[in-house]
């Protein structure tokens, strides 16, 4: 009987029949002829979710095989709708990939040829004691071949299993790597992407150095998303691209005095110009991703208009993507972003402003403390009757405070920052929703006023649904508004205040 707990070995090299030999002690080894070589591809998403969790996903022909985790090797059909995990057919591989961020598409990391052999070990009565299925991956490019041995023990023959395991390990070229190292072994030249790289900010650096470091790193992050946006692999490439550029822009506006004022304004202008062609596509992505939520907001009688609206979004998205892809491929864009990179990465770096040489530690404390007090001042002025503008101002203030705390986080012990970030995040979620509902109402209103006419009857259906949607969003915005004062009072507790003071106010601490 097959044992559910199988054991899988990753063995560097082709593990040729000659290397395997024909006997292990008194026992015989039989290895079948390899089947015909076919192509394989290793799949992972842009952020390497599978590799980081020790999984390797192999697509060969119509089969997806997943290595790693408790199950050993599991397989299912490769048929899928799109490249998201949710688009896979239900099966054990899909189940084992539930940890993968749902919006990240599975992409080819590298390819090569794959072949299979079966091995069995028998005793003097020709009884099989253990079997193994050998899968050899031979990568294209400069990587090394790897053989994956799935051992299928037979009950009661544990000793034979151990013997075979040792024998296979001894036959391999080098020691067995972990599943997480398999993909780098096969495809060593494949770049690894990190959306949130650690930027080393050290206490004795200057503000100017630190700002330059953060900007350099995030411009690079943005660039690593360009190809994925152009190929339209998934919506997260554009999202990461925008987040990275927004970080660049916020360093420019928050790190005051690091560069001369004119220079800062110029850089900010460039960053905004880089951002602006991405806005429409991102907006449409956000609406299309939330499609189910919108349908849930309205009764079925109003779904027809929503379907019309989303169909128009889908069409518009195609055009918006084409336009952005063309922009990202243009020489104008290319020189704008490489010039900006060069301005920070060059040997001289950008010119220095009045605060350039301040030590980053003092500089950070001053900025955070000032921003924190400003946030509190705005928030304490907010009552149930305060105009929405002031709420927006609070949202922007919180955002800036959060960016500052995150940029300078390496300067402070994580355990000290985490408890004060938590209520800030909660307040920001609250403010974020309040803002989203408001932005969505404006977006829908603009869409309704400006869309291409579909004909009188259809326009009416569309208008009814959008009108209803705006009403629901308005209601939700009011609910969020009502929560803001409570969220702030949680953030404004005596504990949090004293922690802010001790971390960021050197004078009063």
């Amino acid at each position, binding site marked *: *009987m*097959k*044992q559910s707990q199988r054991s899988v070995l990753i063995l560097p090299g082709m593990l040729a029949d000659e290397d395997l030999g024909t006997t292990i002690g008194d026992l015989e080894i039989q290895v079948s002829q390899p089947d015909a070589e076919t192509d394989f591809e290793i799949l992972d998403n842009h952020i390497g979710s599978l590799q980081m969790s020790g999984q390797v996903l192999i697509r060969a022909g119509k089969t997806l095989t997943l290595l790693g985790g408790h199950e050993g090797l599991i397989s299912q059909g490769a048929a899928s709708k799109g490249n998201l995990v949710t688009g896979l057919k239900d099966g054990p591989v899909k189940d084992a990939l539930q940890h993968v961020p749902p919006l990240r598409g599975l992409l080819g990391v590298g390819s090569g040829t794959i072949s299979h052999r079966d091995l069995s070990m028998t005793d003097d*009565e*020709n*009884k*099989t004691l253990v079997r193994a299925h050998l899968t050899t991956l031979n990568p294209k490019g400069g990587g090394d071949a790897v053989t994956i041995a799935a051992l299928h*023990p*037979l*009950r*009661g*023959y544990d000793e034979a299993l151990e013997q075979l395991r040792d024998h296979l390990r001894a036959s391999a070229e080098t020691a067995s790597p972990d599943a997480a190292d398999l993909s780098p072994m096969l495809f060593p030249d494949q770049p690894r992407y990190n959306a949130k790289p650690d930027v080393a900010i050290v206490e004795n650096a200057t503000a100017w150095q630190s700002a330059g470091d953060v900007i350099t790193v995030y411009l690079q992050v943005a660039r690593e998303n360009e190809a994925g946006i152009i190929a339209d692999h998934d919506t997260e490439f554009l999202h990461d691209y925008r987040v990275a550029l927004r970080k660049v822009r916020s360093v420019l506006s928050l790190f005051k005095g690091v560069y001369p004022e004119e220079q800062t304004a110029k850089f900010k202008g460039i960053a905004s110009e880089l951002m602006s062609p991405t806005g429409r596509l991102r907006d449409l992505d956000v609406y299309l991703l939330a499609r189910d939520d919108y349908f849930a907001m309205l009764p079925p009688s109003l779904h027809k208009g929503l379907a019309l609206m989303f169909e128009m979004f889908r069409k518009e998205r195609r055009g918006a993507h084409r336009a952005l892809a063309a922009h990202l491929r243009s020489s104008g864009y290319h020189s704008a972003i490489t010039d900006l990179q060069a301005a920070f990465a060059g040997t001289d770096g950008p010119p220095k402003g009045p605060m350039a040489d301040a030590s980053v530690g003092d500089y950070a404390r001053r900025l955070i403390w000032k921003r924190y007090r400003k946030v509190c001042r705005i928030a304490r002025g907010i009552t149930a009757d305060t105009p929405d503008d002031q709420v927006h101002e609070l949202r922007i203030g919180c955002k800036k405070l959060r960016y500052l705390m995150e940029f300078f986080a390496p300067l402070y012990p994580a355990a000290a920052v985490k408890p004060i970030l938590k209520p800030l995040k909660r307040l920001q979620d609250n403010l974020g929703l309040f803002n989203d509902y408001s932005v969505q109402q404006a977006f829908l209103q603009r869409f309704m006023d400006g869309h291409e006419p579909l004909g009188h009857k259809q326009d009416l259906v569309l208008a009814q649904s959008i009108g209803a949607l705006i009403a629901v969003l308005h209601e939700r915005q009011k609910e969020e508004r009502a929560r803001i004062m409570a969220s702030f009072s949680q953030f404004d507790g005596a504990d949090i205040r004293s922690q802010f003071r001790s971390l960021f106010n050197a004078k009063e601490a």
Partner: protein
Amino acid sequence: MKIVACYSNKGGVGKTAASVNLAYAFAETGSRVLLCDLDPQGASGFYFRVKPSQKLDNDAFFEEAKQVAKAIRGSDYDNLDILPANMTFRDFDVFLSRMKNSQSRLKKSLKAVGSDYDIIVLDCPPNISTLSENVLQAADLIVVPVIPTTLSERTFEQLLEFVEGQEATKVSKKKIAAFFSMVQRQKVLHGETMARMRDTYPKRILKAALPFSTDVERMGVNRAPVLAFASDRPSAKAYRQIFAEVQTRLRES
């Protein structure tokens, strides 16, 4: 989990061959099967090339279900494991008869081990004794090969009488599913005996009958079930029909 016992109070009727092929047929359908070789001659294990286990004794079988689990060996076929015979099983019946409440112990220890399996097939030794009482009680179905001769007819009657004597211990003769084994069509006696017995025990005898075949005898040379090495032969087909009827009866039991 269901227990199927292959049993006959007469030797040499094709009981082990039936156990081996039924176990194989169950495993083929995806059920997880344990074939227990309770016959001291150890023939079922031999057919699967499994060497007799060495450490198992009677104490172990009834008191240490874990030790039984250790003695189990995987066959070369998916879903099919063997509990090989141990020569000390020869005294198995005697041992049991000395124990109080022995009737329920087999069932208990099988349950303890059987959590891994959907089907347990017991290849029983050929006599009516304490082990047999245990087997009769534990089994959901008792498959009895009968060679259609006058003598076998007589032994089958004895078996039914014995079973009826066991009413108190929840053994019902409804569990008995006999099939004609080693049937030789050219023998008039075989034909007459089969007709008479089907008439006398209409519900106890399966429709399918196993013809006399050298394929079954070749199992000892090939050391594999007929179903595995001669799947298209008449005897294999007969085993499949017997299996189908056994499955139906198990579902109804």
